[in-house]
């Protein structure tokens, strides 16, 4: 049986206790909202996208340690990055969560950059019920990127 230390890595608890990029962005920033219908977690992702770059991101909402820390780490990882690179990162993250690619014709993943802090969430896969917690922010981010197009 996987132990709790596989799930609750110190860096995860750090992001949970001290979440990065919390707050809201005023319009014209994009606002996307995500729900986890199983547990009632809610998240809002605000994005400023300029010339194909996410210049700012803020996270709102409530959730468990996994969904909140995943959102916090995500915000840190995507801020200032080009949209195409972020979309690649979302695919890599979902891949790490053992989620099948939806688009069978997607271009090959670029895995040249290290995942950094996000690696800490790898242990979530051993707790299948929590995968939805970890991916909530990422799916909401995708929704926001789609809106910004």
């Amino acid at each position, binding site marked *: *049986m996987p*132990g*709790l230390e596989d*799930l*609750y890595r110190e860096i995860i*608890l750090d992001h949970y206790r001290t979440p990065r990029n919390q707050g809201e962005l005023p319009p014209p920033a994009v606002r996307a909202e995500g729900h986890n219908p*199983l*547990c*009632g*977690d*809610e998240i809002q992702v605000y994005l400023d996208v300029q010339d194909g770059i996410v210049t700012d991101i803020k996270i709102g909402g*409530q*959730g*468990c*340690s*996994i969904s*909140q820390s995943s959102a916090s780490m995500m915000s840190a990882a995507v801020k200032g990055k080009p949209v195409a690179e972020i979309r690649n990162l979302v695919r890599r993250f979902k891949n790490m969560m053992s989620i099948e690619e939806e688009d069978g014709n997607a271009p090959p993943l670029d895995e040249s950059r290290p995942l950094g802090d996000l690696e800490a969430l790898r242990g979530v896969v051993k*707790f299948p019920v*929590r995968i939805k*917690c970890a991916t909530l922010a990422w799916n909401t981010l995708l929704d926001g990127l789609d809106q910004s197009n």
Partner: protein
Amino acid sequence: MNFDPVVVKKDFPLLEREVNGKPLVYLDSANTSQKPRQVIDAMSRFMETSYAPINRSAYQLAAESTDAFEAARAAVRRFINAPKVHEVVFTKNATEALNLVAHSWGSANLRAGDVVVLTHMEHHANIVPWHMLATERGLKLRWVPLTADGQLDLTTLPELLDGAKIFAFTAMSNVLGTLTPVKQLVDAAHAAGAIAIVDGCQYVPHNPTDVQAWGADFLAFSSHKLCGPSGIGVLWGREALLDAMPPFLGGGNMIADVRLDGFTCAELPAKFEAGTPPITEAVGMHAAISYLSSLGMDNVREHEVEVTAYAIDKLKARYGDDITIHGPTDPALRGATLSFKFKDIHPHDVSQVLDQANVCVRAGHHCAKPLMKLLGANATARASFYIYNSTADADALADALANAGDLFGF
């Protein structure tokens, strides 16, 4: 003399199971209950010896199967003290039973501007069907508010019920554990000229139920929460009301005649039982009712009052203000379903830590989002006790919670 939950537990094979070398502490019976050997055996025996179609074949085996199915209906009648056997309609679950009433009684009797009264502590199954009907027909929904300790606030009930056609309410909250004053609510509904629909999903498995003493018009509940199988539930309704209602689902079994230009409905209860019903499940539900009846529903209630009082005292004594138990603290006012907030730890994380000790609780919104909003929480953790849970399970819960506090460092 009450039963011993430790002895009762031995009837439940699953609860003998160990996970990762440790025993299970199953505290999620408000979600679904475990099944005793008596139910498992009755269903296996039926499938091995008597399973056949019901109500449509002339051979002896089919007659045996039909008799078993109808014996289950008679057992349900006795269990809830319904006046007539054919007032007991088998459905898929309590949700379908409530949808049946909303759709069938509602479509025949409700018009634009009509009022349906619900309470703030309803399960989605007693909210969404009315929202659907309200959207379709232009109905108005009114909500009975709650007091600070999670009981119904009845001070404005006469005004809320004024002009209402339906008052649909739970007999016991699946989140707060609160028992509602069913008889009083039924009387208030009738005084206002409304019909009274009781969601008994949480109440019926844990308390003696008497629909005639309540004076209710409809009662919905599920088998799977009362030690029976999933896949079958009950709608009980007054004969006159059921008779006047149009059918719900169309198909085989529910008709007296079908022609090219139309059809004629069967009599009750077949009118509301289209298609092949859950036959083996009815046999299992019968066995579950017999099992609970042999314990005695008064004893079940008494046991749960004891274990609830113990669990509340234990958790409060150990954790003080670090734990908030929602709903009434007086066990006389509540069932054995304890929703709680522990420190500032998210319920999902609480249940994850408890799972390490095989303590099974529900974490989430419990299909009662309007109530969760009122509590100011997106989710709670919920421990619910049943006949096979002893005070040792409350101790295990209290012990396992300490690990959550340690891990999150709150």
